[in-house]
């Protein structure tokens, strides 16, 4: 079936009754929320009431490929997955690449909304117009790789696309993920546990249809031109050659590398966990693109020494190398490759997995987690064998320590007590990604206000470093002067963060990869708006696109406000606010409470949010057309 790209359809699946039904997305909503992340947010706000248990049957799990996913727009294959998050109890959106999103589009669905929970383990098989809930009892307990293989075998088609969880999601680990297309992870916030709570092991899809664009020829020309511009961007080549972990040597040189649970900012031999080293030493075996991407930052590696057997897997990405490597004091290429493989197979978010382990290591070294509480493990920093064992135990919630750590650092610190909360690198219940928010001030603000907790995957502010010409030009466009391309400055950080929030939300909603719009810059708001207009046949300006992004951000804010989140929740991990950087060019830098308060005041004012509560003001909601939808929050 060839469908009009603007005639979006929602497939609802109730796992408890087996009932499925279709809805159409109001076309006006598509212009207000753009699709993907935006429509997901609206559905979640409307249909998930305040106070529900994120792991209970009332939570929804919403899969929303971007509006341009399935087209030739460059790097547009991403899907937003949205629910109320179990790690934070707040809004959770996770973006993932791979090919499942496009397959769902070709099968005829723009959104898949999972309701309730199945009595027994099940998986969903979407084969064009046919939707079937199938028995998955034989798959329960299996790793992601084996499950993926068995589903393809069972359905008799190796070309189908699958999104699935591993044992960690089944066991309710609060940082379990969903794996798409074998090697792409919807990682953060415990989204895999939500899928597990619904007894849903996998979604498999096969689509043979297509999408009809209003202005097909013009769209194709602009998509091609944007693709060319993207290939000329200074950052694209390195992303292809070394992947994201190519950033590790410069981060180390800049004294901004997260090491030893963020207590150090450099580590010896850092290049051994870099993308450059993987290439030089022959670990790298191949590269792959997500749907419609020309950058191909995704890589494959294999071990050489085979200390942990012959390991073949994807990545490891920058965050993996840091969280499972430097954060735990492990500069051992083969060990990190093995840890990454285990996390992928069990279905664990590598960022949080690394953080809970590095937190446990610090607890151990400070005498708070020893003997029985450590389940007999030697948890000193640098012990790769203990890390591997802990990954297995966490995924299975095995033993006292495995079960403790499976709930993330916030809960674990509450149980262990003492000062251990001070080195739990989390806020709102989510472990921070490996960016030093003591030195980088836009990141600090963006992480503090991030509705899902402190990470870089809702708002990426790479431009503030001014590393490339394109980045400096963007800072000039946002602030009026490229001198503000200095990450340690406080001035203009609110402008930078808000611009990136708006842009990132639009990027997600249309299905683009954030690397193309907020790290490289060819998929800029102007190009996004033109591509959307050409696809739909109705004009959307750059400004309207950015306002739609802001509308999404504000709606997400309202979801959290309805759940009771307030200004005091917009914070950073204690260490980022209280322990200054101890060495290097950033020595002495910290984002203390006064600094963060100043940043928040400016940011709330710019947004039109109440500075006391952080809740959007009624006039702001009115301006954005959200007043009716969000009338149930306690407005400022």
């Amino acid at each position, binding site marked *: 079936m060839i469908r009009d790209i603007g005639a979006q359809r929602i497939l609802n699946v109730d796992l408890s009754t087996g009932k499925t039904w279709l809805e159409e997305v109001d076309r006006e909503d598509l212009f207000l929320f753009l699709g993907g992340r935006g429509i997901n947010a609206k559905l979640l706000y409307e249909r998930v009431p305040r106070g529900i248990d994120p792991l209970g049957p009332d939570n929804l799990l919403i899969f929303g490929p971007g509006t341009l996913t399935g087209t030739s727009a460059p790097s547009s294959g991403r899907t937003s997955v949205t629910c109320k998050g179990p790690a934070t109890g707040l809004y959770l959106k996770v973006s993932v690449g791979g090919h499942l999103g496009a397959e769902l589009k070709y099968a005829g669905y723009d959104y898949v909304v999972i309701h309730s929970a199945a009595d027994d383990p099940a998986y969903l098989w979407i084969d064009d117009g046919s939707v079937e809930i199938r028995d998955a009892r034989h798959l329960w307990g299996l790793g992601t790789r084996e499950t993926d293989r068995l589903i393809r075998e069972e359905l008799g088609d190796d070309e189908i696309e699958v999104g699935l969880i591993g044992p960690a999601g089944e066991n309710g680990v609060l940082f379990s993920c969903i794996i798409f297309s074998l090697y792409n992870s919807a990682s953060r916030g415990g989204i895999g546990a939500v899928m597990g709570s619904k007894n849903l092991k996998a979604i498999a899809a096969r689509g043979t249809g297509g999408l009809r664009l209003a202005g097909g020829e013009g769209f194709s020309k602009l998509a091609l031109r944007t693709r060319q511009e993207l290939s000329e961007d200074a950052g694209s080549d390195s992303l292809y050659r*070394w992947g994201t972990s190519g950033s590790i*040597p410069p*981060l180390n040189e800049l004294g901004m590398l997260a090491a030893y649970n963020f207590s150090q900012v450099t580590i010896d031999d850092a290049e051994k966990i870099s993308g450059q*080293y993987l290439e030089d030493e022959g670990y790298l075996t191949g590269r792959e693109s997500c749907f419609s991407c020309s950058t191909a930052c995704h890589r494959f590696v294999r071990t050489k020494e085979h200390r942990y057997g012959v390991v073949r897997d994807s990545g490891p990405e920058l965050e993996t190398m840091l969280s499972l490597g430097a954060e735990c004091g492990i500069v051992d290429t083969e060990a990190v490759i093995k840890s990454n493989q285990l996390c992928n197979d069990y279905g664990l978010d590598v960022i949080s997995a690394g953080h809970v382990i590095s937190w446990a290591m610090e607890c151990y070294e400070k005498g708070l987690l020893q003997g029985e509480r450590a389940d007999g493990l030697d948890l000193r920093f640098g012990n790769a064998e203990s890390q591997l064992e802990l990954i297995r135990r966490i995924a299975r919630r095995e033993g006292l320590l495995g079960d403790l750590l499976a709930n993330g650092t916030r809960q674990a610190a509450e149980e262990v007590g003492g000062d251990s909360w001070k080195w739990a690198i989390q806020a709102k219940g989510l472990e921070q990604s490996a960016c030093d928010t003591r030195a980088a001030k836009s990141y600090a603000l963006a992480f503090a206000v991030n509705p899902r907790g402190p990470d870089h995957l809702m708002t990426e502010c790479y431009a503030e*470093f001014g590393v490339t010409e394109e980045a400096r030009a963007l800072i000039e466009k946002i602030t009026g002067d490229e001198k503000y391309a200095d990450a340690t400055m406080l001035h203009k950080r609110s402008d930078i963060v808000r611009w990136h929030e708006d842009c990132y939300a639009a990027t997600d909603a249309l299905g683009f990869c954030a690397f193309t719009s907020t790290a490289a810059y060819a998929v800029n708001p102007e190009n996004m708006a033109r591509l959307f207009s050409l696809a739909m046949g109705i004009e959307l300006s750059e400004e309207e696109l950015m306002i739609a992004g802001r509308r999404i951000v504000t709606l997400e804010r309202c979801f959290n406000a309805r759940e009771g989140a307030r200004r005091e929740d917009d914070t950073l991990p204690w260490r980022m606010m209280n322990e200054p950087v101890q060495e290097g060019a950033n020595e002495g830098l910290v984002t203390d409470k006064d600094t963060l308060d100043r940043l928040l005041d400016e940011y709330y004012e710019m947004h039109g949010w109440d500075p006391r509560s952080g809740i959007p003001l009624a006039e702001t909601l009115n301006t954005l057309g959200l007043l009716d939808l969000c009338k149930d929050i306690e407005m400022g």
Partner: protein
Amino acid sequence: MPEITLRLFGFGSRASGFDTELRSVAAGTTVRKLWEELRSSADDTELLARIDERNVVFLLNGTLIHQQETNHTVLKDGDTVTYMVLAMGGQCY
């Protein structure tokens, strides 16, 4: 003559290699001038001579120096100047 530490990353035969050396530079040498000297003394086949300058990151004592500032950033005794092949991704840099 100021004595500085020169660090080059990614310009040798290995993408992951650092080359570090102590070097004396003429008084008044800027980050830019040293870079140009390095390029002009490199063999045409070397990456150092061929690389598009947009793909180079300049650091002085661990701090990023934007390319337009390299002209008036004078090297002092004890400085560490680093020239790196650009790499990005994941998150901040």
